[in-house]
């Protein structure tokens, strides 16, 4: 029998707002535990939430980018459960009237376009973190993450393979990055995905699904889907049943194991959050969110081509990742030479990223230094060879470009006497080539110029060397 897997996703994205969703505490990652906490996010008796408007705007941005209907009159609900990382013992979330509904995203998989339905996007607050202290054998609570705004993007069960899921997630990630609403760092937990998965005979009735949690990388997601599909098929083929349950993925072991069954699923006792008014998004507010949407990849590509005459191929490369586009735009602005900046980032920088396995989000190269090099090469202070060498040194070692060029003596030789001296020496030494040229074999010119450049240690101003050579040969 041919089995088909049916997969739906719940993607959690932490919104990159400065402050938390219901109080003024900072959302910065990686600070000392419990330093970004106030009575409100710590859930002290008597506190009340205060909604962060930027969080709402960010959620709406995502809804717009995913072609959703924006809920004009949206509400919060309380999801009640006991856990030490949840200081109020309820999470403020949205069940009955989520902020966005009924969207879709087109993804390209193996050359065909597939439409993935988005069931809803809802807003909620993140929980804290539990840290197990091995020394004291205690579990410690860090409430700094409590109240960081989250959106949960729930897709329809429209995926049938790990490849489709992976492509969708990568595309979603780029959209979130371009929108500027999430930094999408899976290892820091700012982007997380839970997977609902079932298998069925191809085209048949839907099977019993399981939910997989603790997926911390794209690789883990792919592996977990393949593992779970195999596990379910094996169960069914051996005449057993799939149990509806929540499973936890152990990426090190490459296996998942059951956490809780449907019967033991928590009773969340959802009800409308009485401490917050409904969010009313009127035409004016929605309009201002639309107007303030950041420029997305497609618009950037068009602009690069239209305004700066950059080729379609380079424009596509530059916008493949938002961080690459950002680097390009910075270098273009600082150097005031967009075309040269495009060649540099789409060419040499991409090559160096590949060579050093640098991910776009880890790009740390200084745009100002690259812009300096562009200015130097385009004002004929250094030649192309020196430029390329210096770019690599800036990328890998972060050197100061001016110092590096000075130390390496890479500044271009434009001194007429030095060039004349080199040319004269070549003409004396390369009699045969000179004779060939004079006999009409013009390709000998390239060889002669090359020889002169060699004598100038590659630093000769190419235009001046060529001119001097031609004059000497006449």
């Amino acid at each position: 029998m041919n089995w088909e897997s049916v997969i739906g996703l719940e993607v959690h994205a932490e919104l990159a707002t400065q402050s938390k969703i219901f109080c003024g505490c900072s959302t910065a990652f990686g600070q000392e535990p419990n330093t970004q906490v106030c009575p409100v996010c710590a859930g002290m008796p008597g506190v009340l939430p205060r909604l962060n408007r930027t969080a709402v705007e960010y959620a709406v941005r995502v809804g717009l980018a995913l072609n959703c209907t924006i809920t004009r009159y949206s509400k919060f609900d309380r999801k009640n459960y006991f856990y030490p990382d949840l200081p109020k013992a309820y999470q403020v979330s949205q069940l009955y009237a989520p902020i966005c509904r009924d969207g879709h995203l087109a993804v390209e998989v193996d050359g065909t376009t597939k439409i993935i339905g988005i069931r809803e996007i809802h807003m909620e607050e993140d929980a804290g973190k539990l840290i197990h202290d091995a020394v004291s054998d205690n579990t410690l609570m860090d409430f700094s993450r409590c109240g960081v705004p989250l959106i949960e993007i729930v897709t329809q069960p429209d995926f049938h393979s790990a490849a489709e899921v992976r492509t969708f997630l990568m595309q979603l990630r780029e959209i979130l990055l371009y929108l500027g609403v999430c930094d999408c760092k899976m290892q820091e937990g700012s982007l997380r995905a839970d997977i609902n998965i079932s298998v069925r005979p191809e085209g048949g009735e839907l099977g019993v699904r399981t939910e997989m949690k603790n997926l911390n990388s794209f690789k883990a997601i792919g592996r977990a889907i393949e593992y779970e599909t195999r596990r379910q098929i094996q169960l069914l083929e051996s005449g057993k049943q799939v149990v509806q349950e929540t499973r936890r993925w152990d990426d090190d072991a490459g296996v998942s194991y059951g956490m809780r069954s449907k019967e033991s699923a928590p009773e969340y006792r959802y009800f409308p959050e009485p401490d917050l008014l409904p969010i009313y998004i009127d035409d004016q507010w929605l309009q201002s969110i639309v107007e303030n949407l950041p420029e997305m990849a497609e618009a950037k590509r068009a602009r690069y081509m239209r305004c700066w005459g950059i080729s379609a191929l380079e424009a596509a490369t530059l916008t493949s990742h938002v961080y690459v586009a950002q680097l390009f735009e910075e270098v273009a602005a600082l150097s005031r030479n967009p075309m040269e900046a495009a060649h540099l980032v789409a060419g040499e920088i991409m090559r160096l990223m590949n060579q050093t396995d640098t991910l776009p989000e880890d790009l740390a190269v200084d745009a100002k230094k690259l812009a300096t090099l562009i200015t130097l090469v385009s004002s004929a202070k250094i030649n192309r060879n020196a430029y390329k060498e210096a770019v690599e040194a800036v990328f890998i070692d972060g050197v100061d470009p001016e110092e590096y060029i000075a130390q390496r003596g890479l500044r271009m030789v434009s001194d007429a006497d030095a060039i004349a001296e080199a040319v004269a020496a070549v003409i004396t030494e390369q009699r045969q080539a000179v004779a060939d040229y004079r006999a009409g074999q013009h390709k000998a010119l390239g060889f002669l110029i090359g020889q002169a450049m060699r004598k100038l240690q590659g630093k000769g101003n190419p235009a001046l060397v060529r001119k001097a050579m031609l004059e000497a040969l006449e």
Partner: protein
Amino acid sequence: MLNMTALALAKAIRAKKLSVTEAVAEYIKQIEQTNPHLNTFLTVSKDTALARAQTIQAQIAAGEITSPLAGVPIALKDNISTLGIRTTCAAKMLENYVPVYNATVVDRLEQAGMIVIGKLNMDEFAMGGSSETGAYGTVRNPWDTERVAGGSSGGSAAAVAAGEVPLALGSDTGGSIRQPCAFCGVTGIKPTYGAVSRYGLVAYASSLDQVGSIGRTIDDCAAVLSLIAGPDDNDSTCVISKTFTFDTPLLERLAGFRIGLPRNYFAGGINADVAQAVLAAAKELAAAGAQVEEFDMPLMDYMVPAYYIIACAEASSNLSRYDGLKYGYRSPAAETLAEVYRLSRSEGFGLEVKRRIMLGSFVLSSGYYDAYYKKALQTRTLIKQAYDRLFERFDMILSPVAPTTAYKLGENVDDPLKMYMGDIYTVSVNLAGLPAVALPCGFDRQNLPIGFQLIGAAFSESKLVSAARTYQHRTSFHLQQPGGAWV
């Protein structure tokens, strides 16, 4: 001095007939004498109050504080968060809980130069109508110490009645300001939902809770309300920019005031003395020129059930944070996480609180939500709509506060249904988010106070206060003071 109204006391202070320190010291002396008999105060902040008295005195002298209540002591129901002062909600669960922040109302009182002299006893987490459910003993009624003070703001009403403090704050979720005022013969205002910030009021039922004032006269209560009311960035449900000033002159005649009298409130379970006194109050207002007209209050049978479903549902969620982990009581017997939750909550909460948490958890559970909670919300909407229609005909509704006067200690505490039915006249006001004032209007044959309430449309506090002021000008029930062995 203890017989003075709060406004008169403030005036005497401004006129330098009395120092703030003298006033504070005098009230603290009274508390120390009477509290052992009445159990009204859970915490007396003697040292900080006396220290603050000196500061405030200096500020008044320097003209830095000009509020009409500057220098006047006030005590707070112990569910109002006070920075550095223990806030227990009369619960074992919060026995040693000292807040790190002030409720908005506390900040506002202090900015106006009032002096917090202590925290008042109540029903545990404001759940109850007799101030018997707290973990630190029962509040006793100053008119008869064998009787309850009412609840849940029993400590607030009893302390004012006993002259321990000229003013107090209470909170009213289903009648918790009005009913103890009626039982203790004092005056109280339950403001419109959203008129006063709830930030720092330890939540019982968020969509119903409201902080209000309790005093000897309506003018004293109104003066406090004008200090604490107004929008607060920290409370999303308190955003409408309504502030109250109650400086309209006394109306000799209530000409043009249309008052509705719900005929069906006076049939059935109401005590005859109470009915008579409340009807007499209606006559008094009619004599003052108001137009009093009877009507039948709809939905009466649904008010108490809808209230208890909604209030308990919200309470079950609001009280989940008392989990034994971060603050409050933790069972010493607990070893696992599940035991910390189960044992701490089983041992830490009292019977009535547990009853309401269980009731609330039940009505929110899947399968029961639609049958109970959703129906209760629909009922609430119907009640609101009924009031909306009534306020097209009337400026205010005059009603009893409670079907009885103060009952004996322990009489109802084991009969929750009987206890809940005592809320019949008050809970619909909270469900509809309306303002109401409770005023003394007589005594029963055992010389126990009787109160009535005037209920108005949302944000009609000024009109309610005007009518109440005229009533108190024409009557002297609010000036009667209890006496007894405790005095």
